[in-house]
């Protein structure tokens, strides 16, 4: 069958032409392939390329922005800072505005991958609360030159008051209580999980001393047998559904969770905890700097920040937006954490590759232990 067909083709088309067609076809495919990956052209002037966490901006806000300014938003997403970093570092994608977390701002800034933000173009920055700017100023972005805070959060313990009496959870050490064996959730993320052990012993969560880390991980290994599961985004669902009684979660999950299960309560352990600030930054090689500034300015607008808050329920650093919220949300200490509760808390800092490798080694030791 195939032989006959071959003969037929051979009769009709000379071999050399056939060969040429195939070579060109293949070359075309390869070029198409390359073209897809190397499409880093400037594109239109009326666009802004945004690179942020998945589902981190209310889609309605994006639409409104496009309608109002006529600027087309090209939104790409990542799941972790570590996923975004090589893309920016190697210029694998050119973005006008990105949304890194605190320690990643520090790394990008130190490597010269960010440009200073021109605040005269972003007047709405005045709505951002002083204390959030201070956190940035005091740690990852001295002078607030490179980043505009967008979302804020703290880690804490959420627990089911039906199973655990209200008020009995106050400290990280409660996670070592054997009563809660098989009912407990931990975060599944290197720094966010090891933080619990470090804070338990009163160390800084940015400690690069091996002795501190060893002490923390030894305790965590002892505790691992009590853990039901390591969960990040699914933690709230397991707590809502009752598969677990307590767990380490971010305070941004509180509103959503309490809506579905009013028995859930959230505490910030007395030893202090981890804070995060996610920020808008402009990479040094941005094509549409002005559009990026318009984007940041738009998101700092109080009505827009409120809309985003309603969608995300993570703490908004936008004080004007906070004032627009109903009193019970505005004054909820789990969502807008009082500054006194933050005194012993820290944001993650960039530690350098040597300390990162140390953390990674201890993390693997912890995750593969099975005592």
């Amino acid at each position, binding site marked *: 069958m195939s032989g006959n067909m071959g003969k037929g083709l051979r009769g009709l088309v000379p071999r050399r032409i056939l*060969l040429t067609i195939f*070579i060109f076809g293949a070359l075309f495919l390869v070029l198409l392939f390359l073209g897809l990956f190397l499409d880093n052209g400037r594109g239109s002037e009326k666009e802004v390329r945004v690179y942020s966490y998945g589902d981190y901006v209310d889609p309605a806000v994006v639409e409104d922005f496009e309608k109002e300014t006529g600027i087309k938003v090209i939104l790409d997403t990542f799941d972790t800072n570590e996923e975004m970093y090589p893309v920016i570092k190697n210029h694998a994608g050119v973005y006008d505005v990105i949304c890194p977390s605190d320690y990643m701002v520090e790394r990008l800034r130190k490597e010269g991958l960010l440009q200073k933000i021109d605040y005269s173009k972003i007047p709405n920055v005045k709505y951002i609360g002083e204390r959030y700017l201070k956190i940035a100023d005091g740690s990852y972005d001295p002078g607030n030159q490179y980043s505009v805070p967008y979302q804020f959060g703290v880690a804490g313990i959420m627990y089911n008051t039906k199973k655990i009496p209200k008020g009995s959870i106050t400290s990280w050490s409660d996670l070592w209580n054997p009563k809660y064996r098989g009912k407990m959730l931990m975060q599944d993320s290197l720094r966010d999980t090891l933080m619990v052990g470090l804070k338990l012993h009163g160390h800084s969560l940015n400690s690069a001393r091996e002795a501190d880390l060893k002490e923390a991980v030894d305790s965590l290994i002892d505790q691992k047998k009590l853990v039901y599961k*390591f969960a990040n985004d699914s933690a709230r669902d397991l707590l809502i559904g009752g598969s677990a009684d307590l767990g380490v979660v971010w305070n941004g999950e509180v509103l959503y969770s309490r809506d579905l299960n009013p028995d859930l309560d959230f505490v910030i352990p007395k030893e202090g905890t981890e804070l995060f600030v996610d920020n808008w930054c402009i990479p040094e090689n941005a094509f549409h700097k002005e559009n990026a500034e318009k984007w940041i300015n738009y998101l700092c607008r109080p009505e827009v920040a409120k809309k985003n808050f309603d969608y995300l329920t993570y703490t908004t650093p936008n004080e004007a937006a906070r004032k627009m919220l109903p009193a019970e949300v505005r004054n909820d200490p789990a969502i807008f954490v009082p500054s006194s509760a933050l005194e012993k808390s820290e944001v993650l800092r960039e530690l350098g590759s040597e300390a990162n490798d140390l953390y990674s080694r201890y993390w693997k030791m912890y995750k593969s232990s099975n005592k």
Partner: protein
Amino acid sequence: MKRQAFALPFILCLIASTVIPMMMVAYYGFTDRSGSFTMANILSVFQPVHLKALGLALGLSLISTVVCLLLAFPLALILRDSHLGRRGFIVFIFILPMWMNFMLRTMAWQVILERDGIVDSLLNFIHLPHAQIINTPAAIVLGMVYDFLPFMVLPIYNSLMKIDDSLIEAARDLGASSRKVISSVLLPLSVPGIASGITMVFIPSLTTFVISNILGGGKIYLIGNIIEQEFTTSANWNLGSGISLVMMLFILGSMAVLQRLDKSGEAELL
């Protein structure tokens, strides 16, 4: 000459999607962060943490391969002998779940096995004690068996279908019992299928990280999880590539052994 020309586009695709990426993995595996040559990434597999994860991965994937084999061979025999309509239909039914992404099917197991999930509630309903297997190695084995069973059944089924019925009749004429027919005729003749089935179950189980993540609750670390972590959270591509290269040795080794048994190349039928 002409036939080679037809192969050209495929060779180009092969180069672009297999050879070049492999070379990049090798480059990262043999260099450190600053780009100078090192063997440290390869040798890091001897670190206790990595050895432990590798040992666990080997253990669990061996168990799942054996379980798959024990389930698949009788099933393939049944499929061969079934006269329920067209045989193709039963095989089709068997392949049907594979149309759905295996991540989703694995996540479904998570829901089924979760505390107060379907299994738990059923056991509770008939007053049996809770059997918590979620977030244990047993759940991972279950996931592996469930996900990769079709890859064991189909090659065995293919090789069983190739056996001429007259061989079985001849064995019967010579007085062989059913058991003898299976052990002396069907089993030896389906060795190629079994060999490729083992390859296709063992290798993906050995390197999986999704199943252990979803059904192990993040409490169990296989070698695949270590590699994944080096790429996604630790941002140490060099170490991740180094361990991947070692895993490639394991895979090539097991394929070389099994290839000898599978001379007819059942694997290519899929």
